[in-house]
């Protein structure tokens, strides 16, 4: 356990020293700030744009962080062979992956926190468009990003950095679409299409349910039971993907 935490801490340190992170963060805060301009262009719906743009930025930039930094964490170690000095210590391969995952999770949490704080300040300054439920939406976005991080780590155990990035982004796209795809298939599809879509739906995560922005922005009621189930689904999914990653990683040869 101590080893896992050591690796996690080092992973966090590594990502914090990565300059790309700062560029992404600055860009994200700038975009969130740009909603002030958009507010002046609208009549009606002023508060919404701040919250919608803020949440969308947090999701997108969080996604970039999860994908690009997540992939570097494992792929770069293997590529640069710094992993040898690590795996020749009494570190189990599972501990390595879990440690990296935790470190990246912490990085994500910190960055999302900073962006959330920026959004809070903005929303509060611009005539109080803040609701605490925005934090709930950000929390679920965090869970969504953790799922994608797990995928990024899984892909980078066996694939090149570029391909891993592409696969992870594909998972994001299909994951967000899977609910729509199910509907589409049930309405228009033949049996083979339905079967394929069914497989995709259950195999890949249904990410749409982690997207609370519409409900939060429109102040619609949220069912706590549904939210709890969604959270459990997320956690189980992360555990599942990480387990697959560990299984793949166990058999991998490091030349």
């Amino acid at each position: 356990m101590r080893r896992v935490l050591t690796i996690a801490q080092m992973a966090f340190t590594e990502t914090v020293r990565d300059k790309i992170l700062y560029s992404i963060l600055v860009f994200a805060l700038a975009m969130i700030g740009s909603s002030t301009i958009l507010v002046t262009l609208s009549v009606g719906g002023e508060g919404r744009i701040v919250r919608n743009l803020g949440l969308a930025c947090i999701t997108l930039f969080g996604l970039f962080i999860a994908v690009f930094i997540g992939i570097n964490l494992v792929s770069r170690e293997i590529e640069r062979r710094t992993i040898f000095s690590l795996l020749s210590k009494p570190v189990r391969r599972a501990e390595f992956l879990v440690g990296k995952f935790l470190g990246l999770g912490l990085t994500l949490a910190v960055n999302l926190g900073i962006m959330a704080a920026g959004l809070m300040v903005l929303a509060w300054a611009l005539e109080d468009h803040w609701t605490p439920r925005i934090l709930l939406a950000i929390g679920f976005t965090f869970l969504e990003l953790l799922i994608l991080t797990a995928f990024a780590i899984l892909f980078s155990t066996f694939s090149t950095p570029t391909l891993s990035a592409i696969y992870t982004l594909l998972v994001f796209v299909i994951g967000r679409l899977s609910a729509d795809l199910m509907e589409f298939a049930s309405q228009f599809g033949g049996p083979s299409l339905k079967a394929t879509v069914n497989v995709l739906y259950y195999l890949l995560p249904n990410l749409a349910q982690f997207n609370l922005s519409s409900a939060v922005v429109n102040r619609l009621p949220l069912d706590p039971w549904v939210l709890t189930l969604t959270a459990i689904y997320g956690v189980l999914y992360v555990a599942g993907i990480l387990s697959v990653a560990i299984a793949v990683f166990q058999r991998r040869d490091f030349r």
Partner: protein
Amino acid sequence: MEPVIQIGGLCKDYRVGFWGRRVTVLRDLTLAVQAGETFGYLGPNGAGKSTTIKLLLGLIQPTAGDGQVLGFSLGDPVARRHIGFLPENPSFYEYLTGEEFLTYCGRLLGMRRGRLREQTPALLAEVGLDRAARQQIRKYSKGMVQRLGLAQALLGDPKLLILDEPTSGLDPIGRKEVRDLILRQRAAGRTVFFSTHILPDVEMICDRVGILVGGRLVRSGSMRTLLGEELESIEVTATSIPAETLAAVERLALSPPLVQGNHVMVRLPGEAELEIALFILVGAKSRILSVVPQRRSLESIFLEANREAQA
């Protein structure tokens, strides 16, 4: 006493290329290293030395065969607590300083904080990096990285040191320092297993040697056994030799004498010929400068083994 390293029938195949062609890198390797000895693992490039080492550490899985390290099966993480490993062409996290990296390694080894804090500066000093301890590794030269690698291998007082090409990239001073370090470890009772293709390093410090060619262990045993007790030749260097004496000596010699100015050097096949030659030379009032017995060199054995394997 159980051997520290014991492998039997170890094979490793790789699949390369688009069609997944099978390439055999190690064939039926059987080898044992006893506690406290310094074992030199020799072979030309591509023979499979690094592959063997990675198998010992569990970095790759064998295709067949098995082995034990320190009584644990290959790849068992617990064994690695007592192993210090230096990879070939090591690379470490560039954004860390030497000190930070050693601390990180120590924590992964499960060392207690106090002991780690003692050992880190001591090891850095031992490998000559005490002034660079606070510099980021990205600023280290190749030699410095190699030395840091040695330091992290020594961390935690491992019972077994496994070093893959420990002197690669080092200048002669660096190589001597590494040899001295290995000798110190041997004096401390540690087992050292290192691979190299630099023969003099092995000749000077190893107890036992293994020669790997084309994935097969073609020679193994103590230096004495391999090199044999017999002499290969004896070199005699002398000066002021009259011409007839030289002709007489020449007949005894293995090859035409080497003449450099006044000095003449002859290679004689054995002690009998040496006696006669010395008798003739002294009788002709020549000055004998040196008599050097030549044992079989490791190099000649190595080349011979390589030739056999090609055939």
